[in-house]
């Protein structure tokens, strides 16, 4: 029986997919810090929510699975069993299945799916084995039940040994946040001039014992130094004097000796104050940290509609300015100027609506790195920086696959086995790093690894074998490396399960091209590879120069323009749309003439304006009849049928209702190369 989902079920599926991402994130954190309570609580809470929703909307099979797994984590919470690799793995796999299942469009298929049964069985068995084990281990007391220590105040100094910023995505930053959630805490962060952290000083009053606090740093041992001092077996934060006293460390760090001295004096006043204060605060602090901004879920269609209306408003506003330009009235001018300002603000805000942080991708990648490094028996750390960088949601979704492919390559081909790394004097743990940041109207994503790098000779050899380049071709380093984007070229000498099927990097490049982005690659043998992806921030807004050729108007994106010069039209060589000998500003510039390429040469103008642009690091010129002015406007796609005219990025509606074509300079020049 086929049954479409009702709107509640659809919403549940959407929410559940988000929750599954959070769950993944929580599970990975828990795996890294098995003793930490914040991720444990998060995992528990998330599963509980999934269970509730699933049962309510008729997906009892999902509810049942979530229920059994939740039971397991409840045992962990009660200290009856430890977090083990096995537990994390069965949970991850079970919810992977749920995620797959939720892609199904048919509600009854989800509800009646048999595929969850196996995972349910595994969970039930796991529970049984834990129960028998804990029954037998009660007598010898070997099970690591979490024993809570008495309330105490610690001074913890964390000095990273690698360079990091406090807002970065290094696990250490989260560990510090987790520590803060253990009780009442005050953290001071001391930074160098370049915003990198010298050390964190944390005052923490908690019931968590020191060994347990130490265990938080287990996985970042190589990246930081941690000093602990137990100041007092009591909550110093209950003392106003202490709180005031530590405020002064905002400016400069304290020494432990000074601290001990003062604490001794304070000790008398603090002793015997309420002990449960810190305890009650714990779960709240952990829960609240994440939600300092509120969110609502809006359907994509509504946002698209809104954007459409706003872009029409912008067009109307421009038309109004045009229509009233000859009227000499202060009132009208005032109104049109106000309107212009407000529409431009409205446009900026509306554009941001569709942007979401790339954090969701980062969670996916963490998971990928974990699973892959286990499969391949490699040790890999995944670091991310700038996960808060925002991008168009569609673009994020479209970029997931290509980026997963790149990261796969990093781990499979880039990072060496632990033994090899040791031999080369590297740390056994390889690092895959994702860095995201904004630059002008682009989002930059750099994925790098510290693996063995790309062997240029073997790339070149393979390319010659396959006839992609001639044997005597002289290629620059960059040209050689960019061969890996060529269809059908894969350098792995053995085809593995993970990558190396020979479809891959060319598809990656194609996807990025489709988004009008750029990709470049750098690699140092023995040191690693870094892939730089540059994507336009928004697919719809464009700032550009309006130009005219014959009767057609074009827009040249402003961000690539260096300068503009006017030369005599005759300077351009007849019958050749690309001129390599035009001298502009005392430099020889290859110039692409739009008129010669796309239009006829009757009634040519006396002069031609040369727009100098830099694309992919190369200076080139575009010759147009004349420049009409600067504009910022909404770009509309030309539609599928114009896919092959990709040197036109889109079109835009001008104030008078006519259309202008937005040029994509990089692709325009490609046109002349082919």
């Amino acid at each position, binding site marked *: 029986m086929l049954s479409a989902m009702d709107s509640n079920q659809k919403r549940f599926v959407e929410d559940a997919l988000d929750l599954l991402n959070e769950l993944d994130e929580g599970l990975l954190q828990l795996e890294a810090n098995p003793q930490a309570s914040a991720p444990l609580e998060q995992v528990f809470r998330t599963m509980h929510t999934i269970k509730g929703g699933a049962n309510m909307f008729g997906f009892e099979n999902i509810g049942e699975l979530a229920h059994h797994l939740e039971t397991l984590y409840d045992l962990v919470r009660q200290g009856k069993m430890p977090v083990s690799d096995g537990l994390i793995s069965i949970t991850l796999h079970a919810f992977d299945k749920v995620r797959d299942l939720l892609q199904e469009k048919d509600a009854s298929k989800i509800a009646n799916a048999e595929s969850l049964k196996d995972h349910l069985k595994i969970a039930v068995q796991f529970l049984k084995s834990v129960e028998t084990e804990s029954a037998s281990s009660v007598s010898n007391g070997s099970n690591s039940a979490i024993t809570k220590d008495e309330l105490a105040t610690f001074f913890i100094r964390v000095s990273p040994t690698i360079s990091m910023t406090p807002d970065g995505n290094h696990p250490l930053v989260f560990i510090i946040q987790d520590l803060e959630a253990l009780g009442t805490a005050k953290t001071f962060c001391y930074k160098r001039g370049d915003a990198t952290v010298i050390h964190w000083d944390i005052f923490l009053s908690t019931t968590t014992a020191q060994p347990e606090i130490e265990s938080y740093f287990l996985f970042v041992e190589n990246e930081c130094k941690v000093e602990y001092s137990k100041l007092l077996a009591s909550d110093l934060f209950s003392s106003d004097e202490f709180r005031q006293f530590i405020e002064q460390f905002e400016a400069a760090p304290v020494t432990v000796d000074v601290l001990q001295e003062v604490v001794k004096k304070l000790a008398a006043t603090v002793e015997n104050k309420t002990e449960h204060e810190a305890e009650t605060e714990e779960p709240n602090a952990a829960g609240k940290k994440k939600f300092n901004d509120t969110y609502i879920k809006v359907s994509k269609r509504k946002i698209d509609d809104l954007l459409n209306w706003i*872009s*029409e408003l912008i*067009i109307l506003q421009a038309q109004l300015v045009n229509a009233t330009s000859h009227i000499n009235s202060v009132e009208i001018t005032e109104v049109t100027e106000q309107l212009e300002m407000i529409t431009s603000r409205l446009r900026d805000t509306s554009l941001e609506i569709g942007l979401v942080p790339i954090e969701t991708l980062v969670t996916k990648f963490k998971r990928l790195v974990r699973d892959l490094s286990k499969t391949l028996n490699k040790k890999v750390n995944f670091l991310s920086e700038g996960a808060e960088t925002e991008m168009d949601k569609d673009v994020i979704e479209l970029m997931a696959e290509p980026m997963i492919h790149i990261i796969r390559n990093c781990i499979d081909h880039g990072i060496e086995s632990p033994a090899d790394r040791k031999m080369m004097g590297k740390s056994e743990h390889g690092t895959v790093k994702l860095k995201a940041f904004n630059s002008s109207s682009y989002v930059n994503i750099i994925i790098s690894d510290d693996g063995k790098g790309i062997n240029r000779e073997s790339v070149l050899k393979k390319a010659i074998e396959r006839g992609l380049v001639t044997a005597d071709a002289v290629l620059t380093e960059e040209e050689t490396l960019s061969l890996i984007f060529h269809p059908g070229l894969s350098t792995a000498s053995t085809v593995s399960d993970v990558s190396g099927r020979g479809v891959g990097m060319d598809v990656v490049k194609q996807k990025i091209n489709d988004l009008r982005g750029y990709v470049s690659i750098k690699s140092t043998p023995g040191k690693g590879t870094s892939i730089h992806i540059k994507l336009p921030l928004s697919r719809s807004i464009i700032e550009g120069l309006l130009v005219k050729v014959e009767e*057609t108007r074009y827009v040249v994106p402003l961000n690539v323009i260096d300068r503009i010069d006017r030369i005599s039209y005759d300077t351009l060589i007849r019958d050749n749309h690309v001129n390599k000998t035009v001298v502009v500003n005392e430099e020889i510039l290859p110039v692409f003439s*739009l008129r010669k*390429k*796309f*239009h006829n040469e009757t009634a040519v103008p006396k002069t031609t304006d040369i727009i100098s642009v830099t694309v992919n690091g190369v200076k080139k010129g575009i010759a147009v009849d004349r420049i009409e002015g600067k504009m910022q406007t909404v770009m*509309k*796609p*030309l*539609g*599928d*049928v*114009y*896919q*092959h*005219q990709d*040197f*036109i990025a889109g*079109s835009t*509606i001008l104030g008078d*209702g*006519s*259309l*202008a*074509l937005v040029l994509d300079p990089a692709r325009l020049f490609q*046109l002349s190369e082919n």
Partner: protein
Amino acid sequence: MKTDSNAYLTFALGDEKFAIPVDHVQEVVEFGQVTKVPNAPLYMLGIINLRGRVLPLLDTKLKLGLTSTDRTKKSRIMVLDITTTDDKNLQIGATVDVAREVVEISANEIQEAPEFENLKTTAPITGIVNRQGDITLIMDITRVFSVSEVLELNRSLN
């Protein structure tokens, strides 16, 4: 898209009269300014601004392999919203020499299309209506503008 509606829009290309299901037709508009997109095949006339929407404009006759005729006062643009055979949603303007009327054609009026010996066009004809010698050809517009075909043609002409 299959519907129960029997309403068809009839139009003329040259001497011949065609009909397409009215569900595909959003509206019929007069010619306005057309902006040519360079380096495109001839039948891709350019783009038009339809009240803030940018639509590609295609020459239906050229697409069907007929000779294009000059634009007249009667020339119109059919604004089509079609899900093509390759499952793409396409919004385009398609030119016709004359847009006539919306008529009801019941299913039993439609005869199977014979194999034309001297078919002048490559139009995918799915049926014929003969009303006292007034012949109307029913065209499968989704096939005329299937994206893959349009793109293929586009590529080959490039």
